[in-house]
């Protein structure tokens, strides 16, 4: 599956240990229990669903991709590949919302 391979190294993404997104950015986000997210620097806000909220909390805890995927596999139904794809897609959306 496309998302299961790193486009540059052809390695499985789950072997990557670098942060999925800038740690400082994730830490500054204010996240409510209802999934409302506010960035105090840009003033942007958006809301995420239950899964997005869980991913965001894992990212705020500083989890890398393999450990985030493992934690989500324990909590949600779905294959590791699908969950990894969702995590990568979500991280991509966050990067787009908050460019460096």
């Amino acid at each position: 599956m496309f998302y299961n391979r790193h486009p540059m190294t052809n390695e499985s993404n789950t072997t990557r240990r670098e942060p999925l997104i800038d740690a400082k950015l994730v830490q500054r986000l204010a996240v409510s229990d209802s999934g409302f997210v506010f960035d105090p620097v840009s003033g942007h806000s958006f809301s995420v669903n239950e899964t997005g909220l869980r991913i965001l909390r894992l990212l705020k805890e500083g989890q890398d991709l393999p450990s985030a995927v493992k934690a989500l596999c324990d909590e949600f139904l779905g294959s590791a590949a699908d969950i990894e794809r969702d995590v990568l897609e979500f991280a991509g959306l966050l990067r787009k919302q908050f460019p460096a």
Partner: protein
Amino acid sequence: MVTVAISGMNARPDNPGPGVAVARCLREAADLDARIIGFGYDALDPGLYLTDYCDAGYLLPYPSAGDQALAERLEEIHKSDPFDVFIPCLDAELPNVLRIEQQLKKLGVRTWLPSEDQLKLRSKERLNELAAHAEIACPRTRGITQPDFFQRCDDEGWKYPLVVKGVFYDAYVAHSPADAAVAFNHIARTWGYPVLVQEHIKGEEYNLTGVGDGEGGLLGAVMMKKTGLTDKGKAWAGVAVSDQALLDAAQKLIKATRWRGPLEVEVIKSPSGTYHLVEINPRFPAWIYLSAGVGVNLPHALVNLALSRPLPAFGEPRAGTMFIRYALETIVDLGQFESIIVNGVRE
């Protein structure tokens, strides 16, 4: 008790003056026992009649009447209704107020304002110079007196859209020479010459307000992202933000000018994340009530500075606090309106 006079009581919903919001901040300031006097220039300035915020209301002569007409009127008001501090809130009146500052001082009226030189330094015509000095990006700005500039500006590297602005107020985005000429004529008729032309920067609008201590320091900055705009491009909704990069930029400007008094820094953040300085206003903005909302009551700080009192204790401004502006009607008794029209005072 201290009596504070505040101008800028105009409050048309699409483009209100800051006076009512400043009065509201002082009304809500803890540890400040203030009587508030509102100054307006038009009998329909609503702040003159808002008894919740202003204990008295007076009309002033228009700025075009000159500094001595203003001095005489303020002296006349001061005789019957003495005030301790004056907070002018409109760009157009500030040159006159600065010229009579010593006369006000003799009356015992305190102010906390920039010098005439500082005022000139932040003028829209000299914005590029100041921005370069403070190492902040700034769109090219030029003062013009003839609309034919718009026909040939392409030869000098000016690309549409352009922003056409008045020296004091008003700004229009022009997408063609025809648009620009219409904006030029309207602004020249209303605000006089020069008319300013500025490169248009695409991005999001952020504003910062604070008070300069006159020694290069910035007190209690409050930052805001506009989240809703009126047809005139004014904020009707905004959210408090906290961005070190914007704060650093404002501090550089304050340091470069050794600004004394209130100010508003207007910037546009381009998609690359660079802040571009588009304007510095030498007064509190109309959204200043947000400063009280985030726990940094800047008008209160200004009154204390003017009276040489210790500054109120400020915490960190609460980022994420929003404001949404709305319009309300106030009921005015015909006798009050008559009194303003005939005597220039709300009785």
